[in-house]
């Protein structure tokens, strides 16, 4: 048998049909659904008289629109159009019999945090969702990617997806990370290296000692942003940490089924002599705590650097960099650590898990946020919130001056009331710094939770290593 990558193995295990022109039909093991990209798909099914083929493999949770303030049970906290979307999901879930975690359920949260937490996401699965950050689930060695609403409808109807196979890319992070450097710094550094289109046409497998050393939470952060590098999906081969994380989760297999699953999962790795279409290697020791300065996730620099000038770039990036600098209100040559911020947002499917909150709390313990700053922590799920409260993290946040919110996507994409005002500058642990992403005219700097916590204390972009 010819050697295979992990991607090849998962692909082959899910291939339903391959046409002569290479168009494939791929079986989908888990379909995650949220309220923004699904209403038109359910409506399409209804109009055509079609049914959801596998309700038992379909899991829905509202996350994008839901308010994160403590009074959200009051319907008035939502705008009418948001409420209509959430109600549509309620109704569609009920009518089709899919698994559902409504806003009132303690297990509700961001779909990419709920899936793994409940044991829906398991190694070797195919996982899709009408959301680009579905890449998150690749941390389990699952082939996971975002799809559009037409494809959501296709998966609901057929439990399959029409696909062309992507190419294989290996991103190896060798050695150890230095203190203060996290999974977020890895994933941003990779995007800074490859560019936001560098992964287009590929599925990335992240490997190497620095990746192995990451917790499952950290691995999810790395894979989450594979899409920001343009890749269809990011993968990390499952290992003992993965199995340990999955074991005992509500929807993970038990008993003999667990043993059978484990035996298969242990075959899920790239063979030594597998073919890679592209290989990128970065030394873990070379990665610094980073921030973004512009309006593309590829605009990454170490916190010790200064704001670049448009003339530092070539080609189409010259104009793009100038536009970014104008939008971000930054002057070339300014040390990044002198850039003052107005707001701090810690949360999102990139960094809203318990480990992220622990990292923020480690910096914030016994400290106060800079006076006049707005700072919020939005846990990724109700269960993350409960655990943070149990561990005493919530008290640290509240004493430091952070707002301690309920679970949701919140200010990552600002579809709910959590938004930036024009010109407002935010240290954010989310995944996109696009123009207007966090609110029209809002300025976003992406970074790790520890870096965002450090920025909250000083009121400017800050090297977390100075506070450790």
């Amino acid at each position, binding site marked *: 048998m010819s050697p295979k990558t992990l991607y090849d193995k998962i692909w082959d*295990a899910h291939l*339903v*049909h391959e046409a002569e*022109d290479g*168009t494939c*039909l791929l*079986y989908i*093991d888990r379909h995650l659904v949220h309220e*923004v*990209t699904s209403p*038109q798909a359910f409506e399409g099914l209804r109009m*055509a008289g*079609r049914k959801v083929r596998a309700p038992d*493999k379909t899991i829905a949770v509202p996350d*994008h*629109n839901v308010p994160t303030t403590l009074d959200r049970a009051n319907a008035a906290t939502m*705008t009418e*159009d*948001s409420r*209509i*979307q959430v109600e*549509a999901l309620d109704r569609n879930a009920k009518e089709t019999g899919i698994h559902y975690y409504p806003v009132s359920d303690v297990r509700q949260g961001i779909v990419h945090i709920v899936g793994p937490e409940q044991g829906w996401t398991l190694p*070797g699965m195919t996982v899709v969702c*009408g*959301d*680009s950050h*579905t890449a998150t689930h690749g941390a389990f060695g699952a082939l996971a990617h*975002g*799809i*559009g*609403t*037409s494809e959501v409808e*296709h998966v609901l*109807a*057929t*439990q*399959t997806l*029409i696909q062309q196979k992507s190419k294989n890319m290996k991103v190896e992070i060798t050695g150890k990370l230095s203190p203060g450097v996290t999974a977020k710094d890895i994933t941003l550094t990779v995007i800074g290296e490859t560019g*936001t*289109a560098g992964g*287009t*046409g590929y599925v990335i497998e992240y490997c190497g000692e620095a990746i192995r050393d990451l917790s499952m939470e950290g691995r999810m952060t790395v894979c989450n942003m594979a899409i920001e590098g*343009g*890749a*269809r999906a990011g993968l990390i081969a499952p290992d003992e940490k993965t199995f340990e994380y999955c074991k005992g989760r509500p929807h*993970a*297999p038990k008993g003999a089924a*667990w043993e059978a699953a484990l035996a298969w999962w242990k075959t899920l790795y790239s063979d030594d002599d597998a073919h890679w279409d592209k290989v990128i290697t970065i030394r873990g020791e070379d990665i610094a705590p980073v921030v973004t300065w512009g309006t*593309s996730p590829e605009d990454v620099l170490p916190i010790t650097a200064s704001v670049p000038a448009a003339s530092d770039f070539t080609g*189409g990036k010259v104009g*793009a960099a100038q536009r970014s600098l104008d939008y971000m209100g930054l002057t070339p040559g300014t040390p990044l650590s002198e850039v003052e911020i107005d707001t701090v947002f810690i949360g999102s499917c990139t960094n809203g898990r318990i480990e992220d909150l622990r990292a923020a709390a480690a910096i914030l313990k016994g400290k106060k946020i800079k006076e006049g700053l707005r700072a919020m922590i939005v846990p990724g799920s109700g269960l993350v919130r409960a655990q943070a409260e149990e561990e005493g993290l919530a008290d640290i946040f509240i004493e430091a001056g952070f707002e301690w919110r309920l679970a949701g996507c919140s200010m990552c994409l*600002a*579809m709910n009331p959590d938004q930036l005002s*024009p010109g407002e500058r935010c240290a954010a642990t989310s995944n*996109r710094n*696009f*123009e*207007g*992403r966090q609110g*029209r005219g809002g300025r976003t700097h992406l970074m790790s939770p520890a870096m965002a916590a450090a920025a909250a204390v000083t009121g400017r972009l800050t090297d977390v290593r100075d506070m450790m």
Partner: protein
Amino acid sequence: MEKFEKLSGVAAPMPMINIDTDMIIPKQFLKTIKRSGLGVNLFDEMRYDDNGEEIPDFVLNQPAYRDAQILVAGDNFGCGSSREHAPWAIKDFGIRCVIAPSFADIFHNNCFKNGILPIALPQEQVDLLMDDAQKGANARIEIDLESQTITTSDGETISFDVDPFKKHCLLEGLDDIGLTYEKSAAIDSFETRSAAERPWV
């Protein structure tokens, strides 16, 4: 789905790289449960000022390009989220074809599901079409999907690649789900096999 065979129209130039889905259709317009009516908000934050007035400099507000049916843009068009609202807005505005050096994967897929043809070309050819597009309303570009050719206003012909299956679906206006239903037996037998081999799924 609406068929795509031939198109002759004005091309609007947008010489920017990394035009993301938040630019194409900002999130406040994702709160709809319909697919239609998004054209008026296409490129909303670039197209309108804080008072909702048109920004005259923006390309689609210029008289020559108000009825553009083609968009010529920079590298990595459609990067960002999976929102199909992006192609819905483009189509609703009246644009049926986007030409760029490269496209983000999910956006590229979403176009084909909505009767929009995304064409990826080498940078030099995009530059040529960008120059052509700059000429305004008198420069009509023709696109023929069957023969996979673009004809510039000067009569120059450029050929392009397209996935054969996607081309077939666009030309015929085929419904993906209907096509996949024809393979129901294969899906059934996969499920039977899978239930035996991976019962925990």
